[in-house]
């Protein structure tokens, strides 16, 4: 795991990001990808449970919840306004990211 790359666990609420790579154990990543979290997919962090874990994500119009430790192996890039492309994966994410359209 490369700590310098931002992961889903680094997002702030309402941040939108694009998945670059889903890591983790095979059964887990396979299930996540089957649920639509494939590279290139837009993900929004909708909320965090009151006790700090798990996270609530919006993916392809449906809501999914995973734990922070699991989210930390999902590498993301910042979502550009339009086409999902590889975004600069440098330092932290600015929460000024694209807000949901439509």
């Amino acid at each position, binding site marked *: 795991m490369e700590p310098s790359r931002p992961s889903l666990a680094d997002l702030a609420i309402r941040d939108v990001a694009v998945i670059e790579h889903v890591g983790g154990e095979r059964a887990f990543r396979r299930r996540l990808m089957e649920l639509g979290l494939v590279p290139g997919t837009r993900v929004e962090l909708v909320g965090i449970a009151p006790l700090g874990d798990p996270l609530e994500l919006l993916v392809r119009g449906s809501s999914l919840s995973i734990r922070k430790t699991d989210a930390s192996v999902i590498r993301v890039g910042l979502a550009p306004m339009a086409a999902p492309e590889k975004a600069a994966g440098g330092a932290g994410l600015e929460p000024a990211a694209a807000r*949901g359209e439509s």
Partner: protein
Amino acid sequence: MLLLGNPNVGKTSLFNRLTGERAHIGNYPGITVEERWGRLDLGGTPARLVDLPGAYSLSARSPEEQIALHSALGLDGQPRADLAVLVLDAGQLARNLYLLLELVELEVPLVVAVNMIDEARDNPPSPAAITQHFGVRAVATDARHGTGIAELTRAIGDELRRPTTGRVSIAYPPALLDDARHVAGALPAAWRKDAARDLSLALWALGSVDDDDELVHVPAGVRTACAEVRTRAAGRDLDEERIVPRYAAIDAALPKLHARVERHPPKRKASERVDRVLLHPVAGFAVFLVLMLIVFQALFSWSDPAISLIEDGMAALSDILTGVMPAGLLRDLLVEGVIGGVGNVIVFLPQIVLLFLFIGLLEDSGYMSRVAFLMDRVLKGIGLHGRAFVPMLSGFACAVPAVLATRTMERQRDRLLTMLVIPLMTCSARLPVYTLVIAALFPPSKVFGWMPVQGLLMVGMYVFSIVTTLLVALVLGRTVVKAHRLPLILELPPYRMPSLGVTLRTLVERASVFLREAGTVILACTIVLWALLAFPREPAPAPAPGTAAAEVVPAPAPAIEDSYAGRLGKAIEPVFAPLGFDWKLDVGIIGAFAAREVFVSTLGLVYGVGDTDENAEPLRDKIRAETADGKPRYTPLVGLSLMVFFAIACQCMSTLAVVKRETKSYRWPAFLFAYMSVLAYAASFIVYQGGKILGFGP
């Protein structure tokens, strides 16, 4: 025919609409998964519709997940389905289409129900477009309100006469197709059909077979081929190569199926507004506490009138029988054994009905997922699923409905672990025992001048049981029911108005399964326990009228110390002596196996105060007055040891009966009984012997 679909797409409502009559509950051959099916009337020709467990995809790692594939294709003992009815959520098409692609690839004859069409009315997907794009018949339905059911039934009838399989084109990378061909070459004859389907089945195997999966009946050749592919494809990402092209195909199709593709549908936005309150750190937990309090209160108190009614009814029934039948063995068997046993079974119904009513409403409205979301942080530390919360809470009222409620968890491992610790919660049947012991053996004095000792002890027993439950869950979760690390993937479905119809139907189903399967075991155990106390017979038993029926204790029969139970109690006295118990308490413990509160009435018989309850002074006086070597026989230390024993020991045949029903095996109830008994013995031993060493008297 099969009914499949993702979880939370209204599959159960649709099943009920299609089949009308009561569902049948059976078991899949060879595995411990419940099969639910009903009959569907297609204008004269009845068809069998099997309701499969909700699934996001066909790929599997456990036997339960494998059912869908095996029944769709007719592999390994499962009859091949003539047709699969796939239920899609009209509002979440993107994710739902994944399962459609898999089924079409595997050439399963298909009818698609685009369900909950009412929720997507501002941007409804077009069934005609789905038919055009994927080549399968699609019908828009709204199972809640019954819209589209007639059309769906007609479509099913048509497709059964001349089944069609759909078409998809997915651009898999050539390397993956090479790998799939390698695996396809290893497929056994029974799995083969045509080149295209063989390839799809090979892709399924590549996605499911692992070194450490729990799949059954996967041919060794297929396993080897998959392992070979994994070795030679080192560095490539086979799962990504398989899944990404499928989502590419879905993304390409979506604009043709919808007026517009929404990233954030209105239904979701509405749900998020509700969640802002219900998942709020303060308001959310306040609502949560109130709701859980209502559930608990209902199980604990609201069920009381109904329970009393059942007990009174049973007592009246046995009075009548006692009146009309001549005294004798047959009458005793009927009154004490059979009526008592039936009473022991149906006395659980009020709590089961109430709990399933609440669970149905919580589940159906979408709130149950929020409970899991809120509580996951607390429960994950001890290896339990967030959804275990409601069953665990119910365990404070009674373990029997609580064990049945573990069904709300999808994974067998989660269910099992929860089931194994629920009986440790302080259920209401322990309270009469605690009340009796505390009142009889502990002084009504206060500590620190204001805190009543007796109340403190009662609270202490609750705390003790919670701590024990958590510790045992922690240990069992890492040893006996260890699993792969299980990441949580929880869907938070949009809030919906719960449908009372579905809830009531589930409730009736669960209650009748309980009566039929667990009830018979409980009845049989009650009769055995009755016999233990009623035999050997004395020459001329004198009937004692007015004996309450719900108790297994016979009124006349032998003097209790001469009965088999009494003899057994005396025989095991040396075993329990290190805990501070004498044979009289041992007999009570034997009687308590029917239900813990029976301890009190059994002790009443032992002490010759007749039928009694925990608040009766005579029994308390007798217990206090019991002496050994001139000193009181039962010290507070013995009382504490006894309560600790009751807190942990599995003194409840009904719990064992439902665990047997829910796990479909004798192994788990046997394990439950064994671990709880050993733990109870050890804990009481430590309390009593430790207390003696510390000088708290014998």
